[in-house]
């Protein structure tokens, strides 16, 4: 299996969560997208909705990230939104 993704969820005033994950599912303006390790570099605008992160620790996070964007580069996933927050 490929190396895990490095995921960080960032809002304007703090880093909300960071860690390793096996998969990130987000909703962009063009539809839902699932990101696994080895994904090509991507920069996408997020649509209103939830971002789900399956952490390698088995944790499942759901974050709200309206009005933000998602970037993927070298297995590093950054979810950025002005007022992102973890729902659970």
């Amino acid at each position: 299996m490929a190396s895990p993704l490095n995921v960080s969820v960032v809002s304007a005033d703090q880093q909300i969560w960071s860690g390793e994950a096996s998969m990130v599912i987000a909703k962009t303006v063009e539809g839902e997208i699932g990101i696994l390790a080895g994904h090509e570099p991507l920069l996408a605008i997020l649509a209103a909705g939830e971002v789900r992160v399956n952490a390698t620790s088995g944790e499942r996070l759901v974050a709200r990230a309206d009005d933000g964007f998602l970037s993927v580069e070298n297995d590093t996933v950054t979810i950025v939104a002005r007022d992102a927050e973890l729902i659970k």
Partner: protein
Amino acid sequence: MGAQLRVYRSKIKSAQTTKKITRAMELISASRIQKALSRVKASEPYSRAITRAVSAVATYSNVDHPLTSEREKLDSAAIVIFTSDRGLAGAFSSSVLKEAERLAELLRSEGKTVSYYLVGRKAVAYFNFRKRDSVKSWTGSTDQPVIETAQEIAESVVSSYNLDDQEGGVDEIHLVFNRFVSMVTQAPEVVRLLPLEIVEGEVPETPSTDVYPLYEFEPDAATVLDKLLPIYVESRIYNAMLQSAASEHAARQKAMKSASDNADNLIRDYTRLANNARQSEITQQISEIVGGADALATAK
């Protein structure tokens, strides 16, 4: 002589009262610097992420955006000045205002008209006193800036940047704020915000061919850039506000510390003088009594 002593005593009292106030302000600022600095630090991941995203778009695509392209004719400029809401912070606000004046002078000498956006009550007061106009001003939260204010400022400067010259649009936007260098140094800094010039690229420059490395944009590069740049501008403004807030607390702590020290010196000097006055009063009284007793003895 008794009058002199009273004067000294009241001066000592007033210096002591002032010292209590300045000492308290010093301690309050000292505790707030740490908080302000940790906010600067906490906002770093956000601005780093945005900067990286912007430089990715800039490097991996060839879209032109009005916010990044230099205009042919530059004849108006806007300056955003970040000061504090409250005084008693030494040269904090005045050094920024001085820097802004210097910049305005420079821009005018290049034949540009200058308009101002003000942040902080001190800047507003400065402009009101000189009966000068500003386009817009924000007050009330300079010591604890919030992202919403940065968003408002970004929206209004970007929208005035996007206007045509005839409608009062501006061709470039500068920020003037205090950068937090260390606890003892805060340097006023001028940054040109628009058109964007600094994209700190972490991605190595690709040779200028027409083929760009594979990089996917959703929905497409132009739209992503369109969405990203205002956020980038906003994060730059937010960063300036946070820097300015941390500098404000540091400047106030320093100013209040030297005020407390000066009060200490004053109290010491006046105490010496008061002791002197008391001593000479006593000496005088003794010599009066001795002189009086002498006079009585010889009169007998």
